[in-house]
């Protein structure tokens, strides 16, 4: 009997060596990149990709693992970014870590009541509510001129030094330093999120995604776990927001618009739902393509829309995991 436990199916052993190796290789390659290739545009672009990759990954925790759709996940990036920015401007221009902590906690504090209302409604209403609440935050940020800078956005955010214990290791105003900081933070978030979604807690989220009613009938408090999943996603988005403000030194209400929200959703779709790598890659492809299309044509919305339509119709699982999903679809 006990011997069976070692080969329990459905519970993958902790990361295979090859995966750890692959992850380490990519991390190292990205870490030395700015030292061998001094192109500020691409370093800056990759920083942006990693930040949005983290945001897309957090959305995937909701969409791919819990089965909940959020149209405006960017709103929580925005809330985190504004809070970190405001803290740096008004409280302490040098306390980087404290500012980030406050920003992330504040994001969670805002997400909690919103999530509480949202999980009380059904699946579809949940999605529509994310849109409505997202618009609400967008409107608040946009109208609260005295605090948020309204339509002009939050400007004059200082660039604090990056301090580890007592050593100063860099400054967030330096493109290479913020790139490395982003890389480290995103990597840590990736590893932790991967751990979480493979934990007993992750199994509960997956059960809810698969069959909400059955989940309730095995004794799972579905609303509560949906709320936990939502909070996890929003806190990750808040972390992305903290990185965003440190990287750009600026945040405006358009970052929190419905258009921007659609972009995040597309990153997840492009990369593939239900895999943590997918959204990261999706963010890369999306930001690169967007950069390309908007340069080429002023009618980029047409192409953006067309890409979404074609993706959903013909490649609903994105790039990663396409094979396995195709197999499943054929069987269905």
């Amino acid at each position: 009997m006990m011997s069976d436990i070692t080969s329990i199916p459905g519970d993958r052993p902790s990361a295979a060596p090859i995966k750890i190796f692959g992850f380490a290789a990519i991390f190292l390659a990205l870490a030395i990149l700015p030292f061998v290739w001094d192109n500020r545009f691409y370093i800056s672009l990759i920083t942006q990709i990693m930040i949005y990759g983290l945001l897309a990954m957090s959305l995937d925790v909701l969409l791919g693992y819990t089965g909940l759709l959020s149209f405006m996940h960017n709103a929580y990036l925005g809330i985190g970014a504004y809070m970190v920015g405001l803290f740096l401007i008004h409280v302490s221009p040098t306390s980087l870590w404290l500012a980030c902590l406050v920003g992330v906690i504040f994001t969670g504090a805002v997400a909690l009541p919103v999530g509480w209302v949202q999980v009380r409604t059904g699946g579809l209403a949940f999605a529509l509510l994310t849109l409505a609440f997202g618009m609400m935050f967008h409107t608040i940020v946009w109208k609260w001129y005295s605090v948020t800078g309204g339509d002009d956005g939050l400007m004059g955010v200082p660039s604090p030094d990056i301090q580890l214990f007592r050593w100063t290791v860099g400054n967030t105003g330096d493109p290479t330093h913020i790139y490395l900081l982003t890389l480290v933070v995103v990597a840590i978030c990736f590893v932790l999120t991967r751990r979480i979604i493979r934990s007993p807690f992750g199994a509960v989220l997956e059960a809810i995604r698969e069959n909400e009613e059955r989940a309730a009938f095995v004794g799972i408090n579905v609303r509560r776990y949906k709320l936990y999943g939502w909070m996890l996603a929003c806190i990750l988005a808040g972390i992305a927001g903290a990185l965003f403000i440190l990287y750009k030194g600026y945040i405006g209400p358009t970052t929190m618009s419905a258009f921007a929200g659609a972009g995040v959703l597309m990153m997840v779709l492009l990369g593939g739902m239900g895999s943590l790598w997918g959204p990261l890659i999706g963010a890369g492809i999306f930001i690169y393509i967007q950069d390309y299309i908007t340069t080429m044509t002023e009618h980029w919305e047409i192409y953006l829309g067309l890409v979404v339509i074609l993706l959903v119709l013909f490649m609903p699982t994105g790039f990663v995991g396409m094979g396995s999903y195709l197999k499943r679809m054929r069987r269905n």
Partner: protein
Amino acid sequence: MEAFLCTDDLCRQFGGVTATDCVCIDIEESGLRSIIGPNGAGKTTFINIITGRIPASSGKVFFQGSDITNKPTHELVRMGICRTFQITSIFQNLTVFENVRIARQAHKGGSLKIFSTKRSLKNVSVDTWDILERLGLQDQAHQEAKNLAYGDQRVLEVAIAMAGSPQILFLDEPTAGMSPGETNHISRLIRGLAEEISIVLVEHDMDLVMSISDRITVLHYGSIIAEGLPEEIKTHQMVREAYLGKDA
């Protein structure tokens, strides 16, 4: 003596239609109670109310002396009230093992260990394995649930329900659409369970019901028209009328 599970004038209306009409029922701590009745008699609605799937319009449900009317589903499950569904309800894209494991985990706790592996919940895995062996699903443990044969999916659903260590288990037409062989397998299983816990069976297969039930309750237009031992029900005048019409 306090009843194990009982309902008190339980009613449910849909628009103008009364699907459950002032039902009072007492269910024992163990044994197999069958609920039968013609199509549309309100059997499924009745157990839906008890298990918290739909709210009651009026009336009460008591379990071990406490009022459980309209309590959230997950709380009822934690109290030991589990069920299966008429239309198979399992986690399609998870493996058979994972289907039962998650149910066991929900019962045993540990769902908030966000940084541990699933393997770290050792006794959950052990219990899961036991349940799978008992129901004869251990060979399919690796398969995704949706790839199982229909009959095995029905058995899996029973396994999921059992993982909650129920004190009372509601089975909604567990043999619907099964082959005679599969029906035989599951009926033996149910009979075995009934020795330990209380089972409420909604079933159309009269031969099965008559052969394995300890007691039978007959519903018609939402109310109880008869209750008793299988032999009594067989010969009950009103039951015959309900099934065959007044002229029979």
